[in-house]
């Protein structure tokens, strides 16, 4: 029963040195057989994805430490399973992803796999997971395409890319129905393109006029030419972006150039805490987030948002970002599936995942089970944050959409 499961957060508040299983049991039965399950993945210790990947890795590590400290997960046969991780540096590129995942799946005898950060790397890893019949929970891999390739064992914890910015458009419509001119400016790369393609179709369906639809290359630092083009097109709203660096640079240069725009929503960058370093340039910028500490979901499994933030901050000395939450929730999904299955058997766990529908600190988790898009995340939704000023004039993040979860009204129009 779920109640008998020591949830990780419950343990953190207890003295971690005590073995919870032993103390809780009233009649001192022989200690249960302890199994160790290996979780394998690669992380980008070097290369361009290093930051996001490290946070994701930290989140996962927190989950694992908590479960292990809580004494592991009891299985149906009376044994308990604890976890151990094996991971290697994928250098943020695809060359060795398959080599390393194969090593994880075979030599290192990983029982479960977690994806690397980013859709591209996850894609390469998924083939191996599928081939060795290992369940893989992906995180940081939003691109829809991976889950439409016919995999049976790959499960997505992120909201798919196609949903990243559609909510922003809904918000815009509710803020000012008269705004019609949108510029979509995006990083010309797999993930961002899948986001804006969906956005574009959605916007056109709603009768918006796309005055500029243009990509920029990964690694762009000088947005001057693009900004001049935007200024010429005179959009009322700008949406798009890509990853942290280009997104924050874009926001900054847009501000420096004093381009007039009423609504600005960018991918990935705004939810990052360090986005605040932009100062006034950050003010009013909106961004979709997989998760926010502010978002007050009532979990039916795992810790609450507040508990997670406290534990994470204690462990790593910084606030968790949604990448951290993604790493954590990947573990949580696995935990729930093992508990439901009561064993480490792949078929049973697959069945548990297929049937999963739970509420966590991160939001709802449910997977598509159709043949066309098996494993695609369909339960989880994005929240939209905006940088605003608090009473003291410091920049703070507020959830501004959907209104149900909003912590403050949106600052509108931007400038």
């Amino acid at each position, binding site marked *: 029963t779920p109640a008998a499961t020591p949830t990780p957060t419950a343990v953190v508040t207890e003295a971690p040195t005590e073995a919870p299983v032993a103390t809780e049991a009233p009649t001192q039965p022989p200690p249960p057989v302890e199994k160790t399950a290996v979780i394998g993945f690669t992380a980008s210790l*070097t290369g361009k994805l*290093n*930051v996001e990947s490290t946070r994701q890795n930290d989140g996962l590590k927190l989950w694992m430490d908590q479960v292990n400290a809580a004494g592991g997960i009891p299985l149906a046969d009376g044994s308990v399973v604890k976890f151990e991780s094996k991971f290697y540096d994928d250098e943020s590129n695809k060359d060795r992803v398959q080599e390393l995942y194969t090593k994880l799946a075979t030599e290192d005898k990983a029982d479960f796999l977690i994806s690397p950060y980013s859709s591209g790397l996850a894609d390469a890893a998924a083939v191996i997971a599928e081939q060795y019949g290992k369940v893989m929970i992906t995180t940081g891999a939003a691109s829809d395409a991976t889950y439409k390739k016919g995999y049976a064992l790959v499960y997505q914890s992120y909201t798919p890319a196609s949903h990243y910015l559609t909510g922003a458009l809904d918000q815009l419509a509710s803020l000012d129905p008269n705004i019609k001119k949108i510029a979509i400016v995006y990083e010309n790369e797999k993930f961002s393109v899948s986001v804006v393609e969906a956005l574009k179709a959605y916007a056109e369906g709603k009768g918006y006029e796309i005055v500029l639809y243009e990509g920029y290359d990964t690694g762009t*630092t000088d947005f001057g*030419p693009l900004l001049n083009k935007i200024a010429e097109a005179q959009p009322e709203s700008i949406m798009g972006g890509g990853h942290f*660096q280009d997104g924050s640079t874009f926001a900054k240069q847009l501000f420096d150039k004093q381009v007039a725009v009423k609504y600005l929503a960018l991918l990935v960058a705004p939810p990052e805490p360090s986005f605040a370093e932009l100062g006034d340039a950050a003010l009013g910028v909106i961004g979709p987030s997989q998760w926010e500490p502010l978002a007050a979901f009532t979990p039916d499994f795992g810790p609450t948002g507040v508990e997670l933030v406290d534990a994470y901050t204690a462990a790593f000395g910084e606030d968790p970002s949604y990448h951290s939450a993604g790493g954590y929730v990947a573990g949580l999904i696995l935990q729930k599936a093992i508990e439901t299955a009561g064993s480490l058997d792949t078929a049973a766990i697959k069945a548990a995942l297929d049937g999963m529908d739970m509420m966590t600190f991160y939001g709802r988790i449910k997977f598509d089970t159709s043949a066309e898009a098996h494993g695609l995340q369909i339960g989880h939704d994005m929240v939209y944050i905006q940088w605003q000023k608090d009473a003291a004039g410091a920049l703070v993040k507020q959830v501004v959409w959907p209104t149900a979860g909003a912590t403050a009204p949106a600052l509108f129009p931007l400038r």
Partner: protein
Amino acid sequence: MGNSGLITSLVDGVLIGVIYGLAAMGMTLIWGVMSVINLAHGSVIALGMFGIYLLFTSLGLNPYLALILVAILGLLLGVIIYSIAIHRVVNASHLSTLLATFSVNMIVIGLGTAIFSTSPRNVNYSLGNLTLGPVTLLNARLVAALAAVLVTSALYLFLYRTRLGKYVRAVANNRAAAELMGIPSAQILALSFGLGTMLAAIAGGLIATFFPFTILSGGVYELKSFVIVVLGGLGNPLGALAGGLILGMLESIIPIFLPNTWVPVLEFLLFVLILLVRPSGLFGVKK
């Protein structure tokens, strides 16, 4: 696109182009003098960025003052890199130096990632804006462009007006002969490498005053430097400046007519074309 748009684009192009030119100058100098293709160029640019960042954030130094320190450190770093990694192989087979600089790059990037991670940094220091008619400019960019022009002129005067500069050119042309003429070639080579590294570090430092960066950011400028070096002619510092300007203008003008993402296609095609038509560069003397 209207006239004001064009003017804005041109001004932007010039300002960024000068910086590109400065970044490329270090590469062209090292290449011209010792035929070393410096694959650590990008990482030195990144170190220049971090130099400014660290001096600014931890010592609170004014970034432009910090630039002087960064320049000196850059020179030293170059001399050290030369003595450890390059000197032994500078006469060995043509490509050994390529490997040596590649290794240096790996070491710097590896350590840099371990220390700084690849999260972007910002030098939060603003000089404000300047608005002239339709054009709005960041003062930081203006200052950077000016600084770049100054550094270029200084380098030019050094190479063509001073004895030491002539020695550098002589060593570049024939090392053994220079040695026979009483020119201490090893020191000259170390100095040249140091100067090249210094220029890269300065360029990095200036870029850091208006763009965010990571330890990997230098790579982009390294690639652009290759293009510029060819446009301007190998080993020609003024050519590098002109090449940088051309590149900067192309980058700001092409998007007026085509989607932004076609810029690199045209840029590199043009590059290959120029190589074929005028391999000695637009400003090199024709053979």
